[in-house]
């Protein structure tokens, strides 16, 4: 602490400048973010009250204002609300599955055993595949005449050529599996890190008091893992919420919007139907939603460092 203020003193006694040195250092980063992120965000506010459709050859600043009508329409837009709910459900399911799998895997990899390091490298390979490539791979896997159907055929004894990605309910499954497959390794690494830094003596003490492995796991280890797991879930939830690549590659949101996440919905609305003003309103709603959740969580976030 004292070194920091010492250092600041040094900076102040330096030559007088227009901008303090430390501020100048953050300027490049700050300006980039301001121009690429903040300015468009402000533009959303304008766009959201217009009905800008680029196909009509009207520049966006000249677009016809419709004031609150976009929001009114959004409220009653089933496709939009479905997309929001669907995305939240997807995030929920993926989080639960990823966390459980990650915990199970981490427990398997906790002790030393031969080839363990190699196995870890193989387990984390999915993380290092470009998302569009893994989406493509899953597209091929779940093809009507693909290996997944083949395996099912072997199990049930007769040919099974279900068209996964054309089914309104089941199409979400390959998408979720792709997401889970890709990111469970990350959760696994985080949970493993947490497990390996658990205070060993607490676990030994529990053993000596006669506790079964189950009791030790649930009453001692899990509570100690809570901070790491919270960070993992928080960060992955945010990223999963934005899901786009797998859906675009595998279904484009079809059939009939049944697999649309929020991002896919907005993409379709803006770049397929070209109703950018309307989508700007949707974007505003989503941004407000996301930022308020973040502000609400900002205090517990800071407490966890």
């Amino acid at each position, binding site marked *: 602490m004292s070194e920091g203020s010492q250092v600041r003193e040094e900076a102040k006694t330096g030559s007088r400048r227009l901008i303090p040195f430390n501020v100048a250092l953050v300027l490049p980063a700050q300006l980039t973010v301001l121009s690429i992120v903040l300015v468009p965000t402000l533009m959303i506010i304008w766009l959201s009250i217009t009905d800008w459709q680029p196909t009509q050859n009207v520049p966006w600043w000249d677009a016809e204002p419709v004031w609150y009508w976009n929001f009114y329409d959004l409220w009653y837009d089933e496709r939009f609300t479905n997309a929001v709910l669907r995305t939240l459900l997807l995030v929920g399911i993926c989080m639960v599955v990823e966390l459980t799998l990650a915990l199970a895997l981490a427990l398997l990899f906790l002790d030393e055993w031969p080839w363990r390091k190699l196995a870890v490298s193989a387990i984390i390979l999915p993380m290092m595949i470009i998302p569009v490539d893994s989406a493509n791979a899953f597209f091929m896997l779940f093809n009507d005449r693909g290996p997944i159907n083949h395996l099912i055929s072997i199990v049930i004894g007769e040919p099974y050529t279900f068209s996964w990605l054309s089914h309104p309910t089941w199409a979400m499954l390959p998408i979720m599996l792709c997401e889970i497959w890709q990111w469970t390794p990350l959760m696994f690494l985080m949970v493993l890190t947490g497990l390996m830094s658990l205070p060993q003596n*607490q676990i030994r*003490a*529990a053993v*000596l008091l*006669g506790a079964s492995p189950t009791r030790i796991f649930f009453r001692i280890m899990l509570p100690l893992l*809570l901070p790491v797991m919270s960070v993992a879930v928080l960060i992955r939830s945010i990223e999963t919420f934005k899901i786009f690549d797998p859906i675009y590659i595998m279904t484009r949101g079809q059939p009939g919007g049944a697999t649309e996440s929020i991002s896919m919905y907005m993409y379709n609305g803006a770049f397929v139907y070209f109703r950018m003003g309307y989508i700007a309103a949707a974007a505003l709603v989503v941004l407000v939603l996301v930022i308020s959740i973040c502000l609400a969580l900002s205090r517990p976030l800071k407490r966890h460092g």
Partner: protein
Amino acid sequence: MSDAKLELLDLKKSFDAVEAVKGVSMTVHKGEFLSLLGPSGCGKSTTLSMIAGLEEATSGDIRVDGQSVVKVPAQRRRIGLVFQDYAVFSKLSVRSNLAFGLEAQGFPRTERRQRVAEMAERLQLDRILDQSAGRLNMSEMQRVALARVLVTEPQLLLLDEPMSNLDAALRFALRTELKRIQRSLGQTVLYVTHDQLEAISMSDRIAVMRLGELQQIASPEEIFTRPVNRFVAEFIGDPPINLLDCEVRRDGARAAVQTALHGPLDLGPLEIAEGRHLLGLRPHTLSLTREPGPGSAATEVAVVENLGAEHVAHVTYGDRLVAVTLPPGSVAEGERLHLSLDPAQVHLIESGSERVVAHSLSGVAA
């Protein structure tokens, strides 16, 4: 009916090529407070881990109440262990910490509550029962670690250097506390420490270990007055024993030992080779006088250490210094005095084997 609570039979532990524990055998009696004393690396903590079941013995047997427990997993040995860092369950309340062992062993709720309440009161934890165990100070943590183990009424209580994290005042208070509880519960305790003062003040018996081997196991008084070898003689005693070079000479049927400045002491019928050996003199057994006495040596006070209740005078003896304990204010630095020893309280240490072959000698040889 033997009253042996714990028996170690030729217990050995090797880590790859390193032999940490080399064939330790001993018996701990019911209700006894026995300390495992020794410097770092002597194998005492490893021995403790094996008794608890956290480490597997390489060979040898461990018996509790006559039954071998080496094949019994740590969960079921019902042996309590207090770790050096206490390892309280930081995410649970103090109450849950105490109840943990009882819950794990299936005690019904009413009995759990009762036992926890009793033990909490006994160790003055009743006021902080609902606090989170992660926010306690050292003394509270130690009591929680102790309480949660005692509440399960273990067959044996093991403590691994539990006082090393505490300051001197706290140590003193907790020593007496621990002793009091042990007595009132009749608990058999095995206490690992490197602090000889702790061991001496608390134990019924002390087992001194060095480099994986048991050196001596006896009451504190016996270890102090009749150490079995040089290591034990040097390890126990504060200030440490003075070791002086001496020479044994045989002259026909008589043998005598002589140090640099003192007159020769009669060895009597003692079997020991001629030549150079060591003579151990405890600082408490030496005296300084103004006038010379029989067999005394001339000496000068070099340094006086003030230890509060007593002083330690370091006096010259040939080319080295010898420590003598005295009441405060008896001597001053620079004084020329005469140093006398008490032949009934000298230890003759045979060179080579390092064993103490005599704990007293008859007197000045003619």
